[in-house]
């Protein structure tokens, strides 16, 4: 399981990379592995705003549908439109080309997990 040290994590298996006032969100390597082949990503609208804890979209694999939750409140400044045509990027490169959305942070929300805390959480959950 790949859990990059520099990212933060949620208990619903998203990762967050915060740079200045922008947060990039995707799903973790563990999450994509659990889902299997991702075949569809429902992305939010550009400019949509979300509160921390809101569902902002869904990821679907051949077998299952999984909601996406943002741990951070803010406005959507960019969506990864590549995923419309190539949802498999989420499987291939979950922390890179498989990113899902960028938010301008208005509410940092509740605490996020560090890489080691997330790893421990996954082990306990498993």
């Amino acid at each position, binding site marked *: 399981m790949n859990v990059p040290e520099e990212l933060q994590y949620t208990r619903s298996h998203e990762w967050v990379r915060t740079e200045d006032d922008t947060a990039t969100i995707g799903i973790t390597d563990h999450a994509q592995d659990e889902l*299997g*082949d991702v*075949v*569809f990503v*429902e992305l939010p609208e550009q400019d949509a705003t979300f509160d921390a804890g809101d569902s902002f979209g*869904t990821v*679907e*694999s*051949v*077998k299952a*549908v999984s909601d996406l939750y943002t741990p951070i409140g803010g406005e959507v400044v960019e969506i990864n439109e590549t995923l419309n045509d190539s949802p498999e990027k989420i499987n291939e490169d979950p922390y890179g080309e498989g990113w899902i959305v960028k938010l301008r942070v208005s509410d940092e929300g509740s605490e996020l997990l560090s890489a080691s805390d997330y790893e421990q959480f996954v082990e306990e959950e498993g």
Partner: protein
Amino acid sequence: MSEGDLRRTPLYEEHKSLGARLVDFAGWEMPVQYEGIKAEHNAVRNHAGLFDVSHMGEVVFRGPDAEEAVQRLVTRDVTRQETGQAGYSAVCYEDGGTVDDVIVYRRPDDFLVVVNASNREKDLEHFRENTKDLDVEVADESDDWALLAVQGPEAAGILQDFTDADLSNLKPFRFVEGAIGGAKTSISRTGYTGEDGFELYLSPDDAPHLWRELLKAGATPAGLGARDTLRLEAGMCLYGNELDPETTPLEAGIDFAVHLDKEQEFIGQEALRREKEEGLGKKLVGFEVEGKGIARHDYPVRAGEENVGRVTSGTLSPTLGKAIGLALVSPGVEDRFEVLIRDRPVEAHAVQLPFYKREKK
């Protein structure tokens, strides 16, 4: 049910060593995927896949009244089946609702009925309860058999190297007793994928060795995930989705397995005859989703503002690259309707089944 209570097939250790993702399926710890559903699906469509379906139930009807018993229980006319012939059939309740869908094998001295794992206990009770007056033994031999399915255009080529039986002369829905890799096996040209292929019934003790040999010979291990996308593309019903006690085989569109003109009455025959005369309560349609999203089991189907049915199965078809599905809808529903995908209406249109049909050589 806790994980410790799950049943395991004779191939459980093989699945573990291949790194399969194992899930609870009808009380069995079964592989849903190994490498990935899409890759396994494509391997079956283009080459050959190997499935462990040992969870399926095997029920044998023996004795002087075996034929009468089976004939009473299934919708197909088994008197038209020759020895060595397999037939897909439904089993119905008196009211026409579906108990199970099964494969009936006519063997020289008895009948083998292969049932869904999820229905094994229910079926046995139904079979025994309804044949009490007959001189027949209804034996549950499910634990005596492993069942492997080798499916795909290369299945026959791979398998032929392991057996003296002439597979080129074994027609679809025929079976033969033989040996595969030295192990006594019933070789059946049947499957649940829409491809050419074989189902192999053999002793649980012989199964792991044959499993490994078939993988070495080039078959790709495939899990229940791919099995589901393959059967859906082929327009085949899955019990619990398209078929259930509230749905008749006529409504589910498997009329070809229902012989209403059978001389010996089967359970549910009267109800099905009546339904055919008076019109179906609902009908099964295949559809493609036009907008964004994938239809899933139990999503509502709407026409105008009205609820007209529900999706029974849906997925993104790996072969077609489209979101496809089956739905049970009111008989009056036209070719265009909407599927409610998480409260969002998405356009869909009916298409002819099957979604995928292999090119026959």
